[in-house]
């Protein structure tokens, strides 16, 4: 598949995530939208990885494991995302316990 398609697909997913973050008030949904954005990036990384693989296969001098960095990046992004979710959800739970809501409109303490 042309890399362009993956590019546009990833952009579209990412933008949907952004719209979600901007339009929703529920902190958990916003969190999920962030995950969506991360996944869009992941998808693009894998696509690029395979693009490099193809380029390297056509090149005269072969290199070991072409494009593997991109996939490892995805792996580490998943690691970070998992850690982030665990901490983020803990924060949301604590938040709910304190203000009995996950509406981010109530989270305007930054003003003070």
């Amino acid at each position, binding site marked *: 598949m042309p890399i362009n398609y993956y590019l546009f697909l990833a952009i579209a997913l990412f933008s949907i995530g*952004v719209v979600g*973050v*901007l339009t929703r008030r529920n902190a958990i949904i916003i969190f999920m939208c962030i995950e969506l954005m991360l996944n869009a990036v992941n998808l693009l990384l894998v696509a690029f990885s395979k693009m490099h693989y193809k380029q390297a296969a056509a090149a005269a001098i072969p290199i070991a494991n072409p494009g593997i960095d991109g996939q490892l990046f995805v792996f580490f992004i998943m690691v970070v995302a998992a850690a982030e979710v665990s901490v983020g959800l803990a924060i949301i739970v604590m938040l709910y316990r304190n203000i009995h809501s996950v509406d*981010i*409109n109530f*989270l*305007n303490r*930054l*003003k003070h």
Partner: protein
Amino acid sequence: MQSSFQLAFLIPLLPLIGFLINGLGRNQLSKQWSGLIGAGTIMGSFLVSLFIFQSVESGNTAVVSYFDFIRIEGLRIPFAFQIDALSSLFLLIITGIGFLIHVYSISYMHEESSSSFARYFSYLNLFVFSMLLLVLGSNYVVLFIGWEGVGLCSYLLIGFWFKNQVYTKAANKAFIMNRIGDLAFLLAIFWLIIKTGSASFQEVFEFVQGNQGTSKFTATDITVVSLLLFIGATGKSAQLPLYTWLPDAMAGPTPVSALIHAATMVTAGIYMIARSNIIYSLAPFTLTLISWVGLATALLAATIALRQYDIKKVLAYSTVSQLGFMFLALGSGAYVAAVFHVLTHAFFKALLFLGSGSVIHAMGGEQDIRKMGGLSGKLKITYVTFLIGCLAIAGLPPLSGFFSKDAILLSAFLHQPLQYGIALFTAFLTAFYMFRLLFLTFHGSFRGTAEQQAHLHESPALMTIPLIVLALLSVVGGWIGIPAVLMHEADWLGSFLAPVLSSSTHEVSHATEWMLMSLSVVGVLLTIGFAWFLFRNYRERESKGLLRFFEHKWYVDELYDRLIVKPIFYLGRLLKEWVEPRFIDALVNGVGKTVQLAGRQIRFLQSGQIGSYVLLMVLAMVTVLLVQFFIRK
């Protein structure tokens, strides 16, 4: 280096220490202690100066460098002292006369409270410190530090009785007038540094001599620098057109007038020009200008002095007039004669001022000579010493003033016979007004109140001893420069100063010299006789015509007021009432208001809502990408 030169730093340091002790401890020290510290430190400096003078006389000179005052790329200004004939001579004048005046002040100022007594001595010490720095500095920058220091001390001491508004105004006047000259001096220093890359005398003079006339230092440069330096000197040394501060400076205590406004500070300009004589020798136009300015000042001040009634004012104008003589000598290229006159003038003018202080002391603060008269009986020592001072300033042999004034007249005669004529006339005027002062003060009948008459007394020993010492010096001080025509192997001063000052090499026949001398002596004697005839028995008369003009000081102050002060005041009022509120305030407040308004609006962006922050972030990203997109296109 000569071992005694290693002590040179003590000369200015001792008065500085005295200043610090007296200034900081003024509320604790008793009067005896402050007087002792004040006079003692100057005494110490005087002794060190004597050592150094001896060493210099046997032919040693040196530049003693202590540390780098300024060091930047391409310019190095060391804090260094130049010890040579000229500076060592001035050191002796400053510390010697300074010491006598300190001693005199202990008695003169005894009525002050102990804290202001100490303040007085601390100022006096600071002044001596600055003056010594001025004389010792081996470059124009150190000289300028001292130059500013004496200006400051002059301001402080003129306004010493600062509760009197007239006095503080006189102090302001002195300071501002000096500033005008200082500005020119500063410009000259900058000019020299830019052109020669150095401020030290040796390097500058070598450079100027080596490159004069070339593109590195053109004739224009020489003229401009010498003119700027001269303007600086007119401020400090009270020449036309900046002389008006000096008569007003008599607001300060009388010993201050003697020290600052007669013996030392006002000679700073002479010293500076004499020090820069190498530059001046290359600037004939400036020299001519200097001689004419000096002569005009001498004549103007002498005519004003004819009709003054304040004893100190007469002496002040006399000082201005004598300074004019010195500038005449400088302009004629007779630097030695100028320095010689500085020396003798320091003796007899300090004597006259201190004598007038003694008179004022006896009269209980009265300074108007119309209310004096016949004091010779009560104030014998003062009278005799004052008489010697008058004879010396009038220029009768063998007193000191005769020799120095004769040297100046001779140089003027060689330079420009017309100038000689005017100078001679001015010398007669000098004799006339001085003896008018003497006769009005000490002869005739007493014209003051009975209370004052009962109070008349001779001053205490602390005041009369400096008078006697100075009187002796006024008599013998001129013998160091007796011209060759009168004595074999004479003119010690000329040969002493020869390494520093280029002397004029004109030869003149002995007959001419004899003739000039006898002319001035006879003229002075006749003038004194005329004064005796007029003022032996003084009666008050309304002055008319030209005399009235003289009495009002040629209306110079009024002229300056109209031409400069009033327009500046109007300009200031214009700026204050119109420009400031309309433009500057509007601008400044406008900036404040704009920011406040903007802040009030922008504040809403900081809602604290996470959503709005995210929205802004996304918008910013869009903007950045848009910009990048279009730029790439």
